[in-house]
């Protein structure tokens, strides 16, 4: 058996006569979602990067199958990407094979004719990088491969500071100075890029991401309303629907004070009330929850704030389960800016950006301060960009220009940059490693190439 395997490796396509790859596939493998698409496509497909098992349905869903799931209650989710790095390759292989399958969203991927551009997060341990390289070439058999630093690809996407009427720069030209704040599921990284190349001494990472915010919201809800410890998917949806970043934390906390347990009899001032009702899905009639302005009459009888409501025709109307959200709406996202609230010894998002800038030479700082782009799933929280801008302006000296913007498509911006870079064949050709080179030089050589050390 071993001899057969050895033979097959020796007879493996030493691919001298192989045809050049016809297509380039860009895969942005994140902890929450996988962004996949060919470089010729305009947008990417966003696929949940997990395997999920629903005990009620008694089915295990891989990746995009999750869209057909009807019951997300008590979903057990297995995520192959841990802290931003692909650690569980058997799970990831199942996801990739599902995505590459002939009937999948991409319309079938033939690895032997495709070049793969895979992203990885900064600060990867050598073991995970080696695993990725070996899996891509030996298991999947891609014809060419480039492992890019995730935030660096954002430099090739169009800048959000230019007006949309301006013509986009030709593909393959990176922006000159860019500070990328990637607020993702596992963590938030701050990476300054110069012509698309990262300035490593100034990269910083804050270990707070969407996952921590969801878990914190889960604990708050479990302590105050009812136990949602197993309902991670539901709490994630609640976070996406109802949470926001407050601009004045102290003022909003005053507005949502419960006045010692007495039911909220008055709706707070200003008209834009913070307190909202969240109608929970029951997975029969309502598949996805939604928010509604708070209606105290529905929950007045129940101290927990968990109400049942019927609409005007009581006989046939479905009962709604209501969750009242007060300061739970803005307290978890506040952790991004003040991690010390929970005891994490870190500086907060503004502090991390300032630390990154402090590690750059003083003359470069204004250039980067004027070009801050926020990407990632957690960047979709309303109010995050405004809060970051206000805090940075307050802490930077007067007169410097501070421009912070969220990329047009925050989740897919990294993929878009990768696709635009790949469309410029010459630029990509310089950095890609082909299968022949991998089998000839070995894995260590490939890793050093990707780190920029080797000579072409």
């Amino acid at each position, binding site marked *: 058996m071993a001899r057969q395997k050895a033979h097959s490796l020796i007879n493996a396509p030493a691919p001298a006569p192989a045809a050049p790859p016809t297509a380039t596939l860009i895969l942005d493998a994140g902890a929450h979602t996988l962004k996949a698409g060919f470089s010729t496509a305009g947008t990417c497909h966003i696929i949940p990067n997990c395997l999920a098992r629903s005990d009620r349905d008694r089915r295990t869903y891989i990746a995009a199958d999750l869209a057909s799931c009807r019951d997300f209650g008590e979903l057990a989710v297995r995520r192959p990407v841990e802290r931003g790095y692909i650690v569980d390759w058997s799970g990831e292989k199942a996801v990739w094979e599902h995505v590459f399958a002939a009937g999948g969203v991409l319309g079938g991927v033939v690895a032997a004719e495709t070049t793969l551009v895979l992203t990885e997060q900064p600060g990867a*341990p050598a073991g995970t990088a080696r695993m990725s390289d070996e899996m891509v070439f030996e298991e999947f058999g891609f014809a060419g491969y480039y492992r890019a630093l995730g935030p660096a690809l954002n430099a090739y996407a169009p800048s959000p500071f230019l007006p949309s009427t301006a013509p986009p720069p030709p593909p393959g030209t990176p922006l000159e100075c860019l500070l990328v704040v990637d607020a993702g599921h596992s963590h938030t990284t701050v990476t300054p890029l110069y012509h698309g190349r990262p300035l490593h001494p100034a990269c910083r*990472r804050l270990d707070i991401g969407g996952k921590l915010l969801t878990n914190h919201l889960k604990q708050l809800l479990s302590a105050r309303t009812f136990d949602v410890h197993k309902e991670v998917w539901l709490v994630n949806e609640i976070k996406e629907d109802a949470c926001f970043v407050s601009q004045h934390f102290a003022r909003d906390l005053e507005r949502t004070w419960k006045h010692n347990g007495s039911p909220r009899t008055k709706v707070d001032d200003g008209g834009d009330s913070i307190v909202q009702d969240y109608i929970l899905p029951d997975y029969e009639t309502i598949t996805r929850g939604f928010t509604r302005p708070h209606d105290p009459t529905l929950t007045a009888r129940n101290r927990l704030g968990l109400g049942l409501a019927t609409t005007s025709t009581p006989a046939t109307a479905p009962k709604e389960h209501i969750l009242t959200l007060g300061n739970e709406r803005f307290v978890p996202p506040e952790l991004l800016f003040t991690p010390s609230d*929970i005891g994490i010894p870190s500086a907060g998002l503004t502090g991390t950006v300032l630390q990154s800038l402090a590690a750059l030479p003083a003359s470069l700082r204004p250039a980067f301060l004027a070009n801050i782009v926020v990407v990632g799933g957690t960047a979709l929280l309303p109010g995050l960009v405004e809060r970051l801008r206000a805090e940075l302006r307050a802490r930077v000296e007067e007169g410097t220009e501070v421009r912070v913007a969220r990329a047009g498509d925050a989740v897919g911006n990294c993929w878009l940059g990768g696709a635009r870079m790949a469309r410029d064949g010459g630029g990509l050709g310089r950095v890609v490693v082909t299968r022949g080179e991998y089998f000839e030089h070995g894995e260590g050589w490939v890793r050093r190439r990707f780190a920029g050390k080797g000579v072409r």
Partner: protein
Amino acid sequence: MATGPLRFRTPHIEELPTTGSRQAPGFAWVAVSGAQDDPAKNWGTSNRKRARASLGGPTDQQREALSARQQREVERKIRDLNSDNSKNAAELPIPKKEGGAGASTVARAGKTPNTKKILGSGKTFAHYLDDEEAEIARTGRRDVDVEAPTGAQRPSKTPLARRKTREESSMSGSPAPITPVAPPALPRISQALSFGETTTLDAEEEGDDAVPPLPSSAEMEALLNAPPLTYSQARSAPPTPGAPPPRRFCETCGYWGRVKCMKCGAMTCSVSCKEEHDQSKCLKMYA
């Protein structure tokens, strides 16, 4: 020297007269150590609990024990927050696809020995991080910096003149930023730009605060070619000691914390929230 009939036998006590003794009165002034007897607080109680509570709070030892427990609670909470529900979900079995039985088992296990090892390993991210830190502690950053991976232990036979200097890699895992590669002295750049004219040299050095000139291309190259930071080095540093102390919130309702529980150190905002805390949350921590 009590006299009078006692039922039990007492030892014989006799006060011997000494030269200096006078007939002492029935009481004596005794020096009292300050913190102990504040009569306003104590009322001379023999109730230990009251005495303990009134004696100026917990001792240093008690305070340290309390804060160690609180610290462990905080760390446990942070670990829970970082969990991915992986306890029950990590062993989620991958469903079998329909297809050729022989082909699928080969594909499941991996095509080459390397991939077999990868697909079969159950290592988590923490393992890889530890591996990398052990590697760094043993030698320099092996994978990226060193050109020849073999023979790192043998002493080099290359004569000194022909040896390339090995890049120094930082061995500490501290999150503080490593010193930037760009040289710190900006006046030197302005010297280079001013083409050696002495008068403009002085002007440039004093005009440093106006607009510092952009770093030269050599410095930019040095910055760009700097080695990537390891996972621990890139972590955001704790806030400066001058920052305001961490804010505490009520455990029950989330408002500002004003009242601290004596037993477990948790904050609540008001009396009603504190009652709630005492009933359900405090005992769990205490026990």
